[in-house]
Structure formats: C-alpha cells, structure tokens
C-alpha cells in the first residue's frame, strides 16, 4: 500500500511546534500593544472649531488655567469657558481677526461654540477634579504640558490601570497646594515632601476600592 501522507508531512508537527508559539506571542503582543488605550487613546488631537491655542494663551501670555476653567477647584467638572470669557479680551484685541469670527458670531447669537471633547471617561467611571486639586495633584500630571500645546492632545491613557498606578503611590505626584496649575513646577527638581508641608492638614487617601470610582 502506498503511503497516504507524503514524506514531507513529517515536518508538519515540527513546523506547528515552532510556529504556534511564534504566532501566539505575536497575537499577545498585537493585543497588548494595539488594543491598549496607550495606542487607541493617547495622541487623540481633534481639530477644534476655533483655532484656539493653549500655547499662546496659557504658555506665552501665562494666563492661569483657572481664568477659563474656573470651576475646576470647586466641582467635579472642569468647565470649558463660555464665549463671554473669550470676549473679555477679544472685544479689545484682534477684533477683526478671521480666526475669531465664530467666537464673535457665537457671542452675538448666544449659540455656544461646539468644542470637540478630548478627554472622556466611560460613563460608569466617576472622576472629580476638585478632589484631586485639593490633594495637590497638578494639571500637568494628567494632561501633560498643555501650555506647550497648540491643539490639546491626550497624553495619558485615562485607563483604570493608570488611575490605580497613581492611587497606589500618589506621593511622587503631589506638589504644594498653590502650585497645581503651575506647568513649570518640576517634581524632580523640587525637593518637596508632602508630609512636612504645614499647609496640608491631612494625609491624602485615594480610593482603591471599586466603589470609589464605580459608584
């Protein structure tokens, strides 16, 4: 009886033995790399309806974040400023600029400018800006150097693992309570010990239990 399988099929088990782990490792790598929020979310930089630049306003002119995001210390949500806030200045400077046409229109009609949202947690996760600022976590720890961005971009994955990395060991990310909006404050250069800061009246205690963030 002639052989059913030709001779070369003897190599199949070896080939499978060699290739399967390779393919498996490749798959694991692909999922870990390309399904990670560090790939899917970080770097999201939508084009905005008005070419507003944080680099110009917050960086070069040094306007404090809270001039525009004024609710950030008092509430969970950091308010995107209404058109009226822009008009505080833009009724006086660059009054004819074409780039500000939408701002002027919005001010006249009362229709809000529809800014494209950059950072967005899933609706089942709870986040609160005021709690983090009161604990002395700076904007730069979570949003990066916004004062160098012409267009706002996501620099952190905002994943649960990222939240927990800090919640387990918040100390390196803490700064003096009046430096939270200071983009130039460098934790590495500054020798700051939160335990010895007299302005802090209590130890920070970030939640690690599920209901802290899924409430």
């Amino acid at each position, binding site marked *: 009886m002639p052989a059913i399988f030709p001779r070369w099929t003897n190599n199949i088990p070896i080939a499978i033995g060699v290739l399967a782990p390779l393919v498996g490792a490749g798959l694991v790598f692909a999922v870990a790399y390309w399904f990670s929020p560090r790939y899917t979310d970080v770097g999201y930089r939508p084009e905005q309806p008005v070419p507003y630049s944080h680099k110009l306003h917050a960086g070069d002119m040094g306007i404090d974040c809270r001039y525009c995001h004024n609710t950030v210390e008092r509430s*969970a949500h950091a308010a995107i400023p209404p058109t009226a806030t822009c008009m505080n200045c833009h009724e006086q400077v660059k009054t004819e600029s074409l780039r500000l046409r939408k701002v002027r229109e919005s001010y006249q009609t009362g229709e809000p400018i529809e800014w494209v949202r950059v950072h967005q947690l899933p609706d089942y996760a709870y986040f609160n800006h005021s709690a983090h600022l009161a604990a002395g976590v700076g904007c730069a720890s979570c949003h990066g150097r916004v004062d160098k961005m012409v267009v706002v*971009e996501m620099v952190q994955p905002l994943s649960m693992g990222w939240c927990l990395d800090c919640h387990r060991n918040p100390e390196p990310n803490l700064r003096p309570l009046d430096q939270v909006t200071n983009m130039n404050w460098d934790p590495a250069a500054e020798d700051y010990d939160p335990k010895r800061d007299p302005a802090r009246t209590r130890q920070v205690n970030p939640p690690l239990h599920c209901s802290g963030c899924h409430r």
Partner: protein
Amino acid sequence: MAYARRGLRAPKAAEREQAATMALLLLGLALAGCWGNPSDEPPVHLQQNMDFQERGEAQERNDFFADHRVMRPPVPETVAVGHLKEDDHMWRGRLPNGALADALPAGLELGPALLDRGQKRYDIYCQPCHGEMGYGDGPATRRGGGFAVKPANFHQDKFRPVPLGYFYDVATNGKGSMKGYKSQIPVEDRWAIAAWVRTLQVASNAEPSDVPEQAAAAMADQRPRRIQ
C-alpha cells in the same frame, strides 16, 4: 540602473524579494502606528461595554431639549431656594443708604489669610490685563496690537479715594469696556480681590516709616547689602 552608476552590483532576485518583504513589514508597522501618534480620528474601542449611556453630563449636547443644552438655564424671574442674594453689602457692595461700602461685609475678616487669597485670585483673574502690580500693563495687553481701551492703572490719583466697594462693584459688574467677573469668581473671592487691589495701592505709596517695627527688623536682615 541607479545602482550600476554608483559602482554597486545589481541585487539578485532573492535579495530584491527580501528587501520588498522588509519594506512591506516596515510599511505595515508604520501604518499600524505606535503608541502616542497624534491623530484627529476619535479613539476606536471595539468593546463599548456601556461606555456611553443615556445620561447627561455637564456641558454636553443633548437633542432632547430644543436648545440642545443638557445644562438647563434657570427659568426667568425665579430664584432657586437658598440663592436669594439678600445681603446688599455682600452682593452689591452697598450700604443701606445706597452708597458704596468702604469695609468688608460681615463674615469676611481682614487678615493674612484673606489678603493671601486676594493676591492669588488677583493673579489669576485680573493680572492678565492689569498686571501683577496693578499698573495696567498685564501680559495680554502687550500682544496682538494691544488693547483698544487700556486697562486702568490703580495707582492713578483718581482711584486713591474710592471706597473698597468700588473695586468689588467693578470686579462684579464691570465698567466701561471691562466686563464683569461675577460668573467667573465667587463672591467672597471678589471681596478678597478688592482688598488686594487696595493693598497694592497702599504699598505703592508707602514710606519706610509705615512698616511696623517687627517687620522692619526682619526686612533689614534680608535686604541685600549695597556695595558702597
């Protein structure tokens, strides 16, 4: 062929195939992208897992309402419970006789804490235009052709005799081409800012003899020695 001209030998077919595979692989990687590549495409999440639910979040768009705003403006001519601004001194900076008050309202106490708060809030909300020291030369006025109407200089003589309530009133309702800040700054902070503007005025016009003895001693220690 380009290769030949530079004195190189032509690649063999196998080498060409190899190069093509490598180029394809690299291209594939480049297309697939790396962590953190900027992109204006919204993030793709294959598993949506109730990421977005029927819920209104602050400042979101919502088509349920005719004006598409989730955050509902208050009904005209109504006042929410607990939001009646009864205290004239606190909310309007005025005494019962209608004149501008020259003192802080009851409940706010002049002291280092209030002035510190005032300075920090001034540096956020007023400094961009009026400048750190109040001379009307803030960073926003020095760019893009400058302001059509210059922000006021608080050290002008006409602002010396004005009552404290005046600064509160301007910070709240604006004046001339300056807009009011009542929606941006809470009421206590506006009083703290007013107190800080007064402090700047006093400081710019002070004599060495105005400094209390204790503070003067501390200052003398810190003052850099002049080289004679």
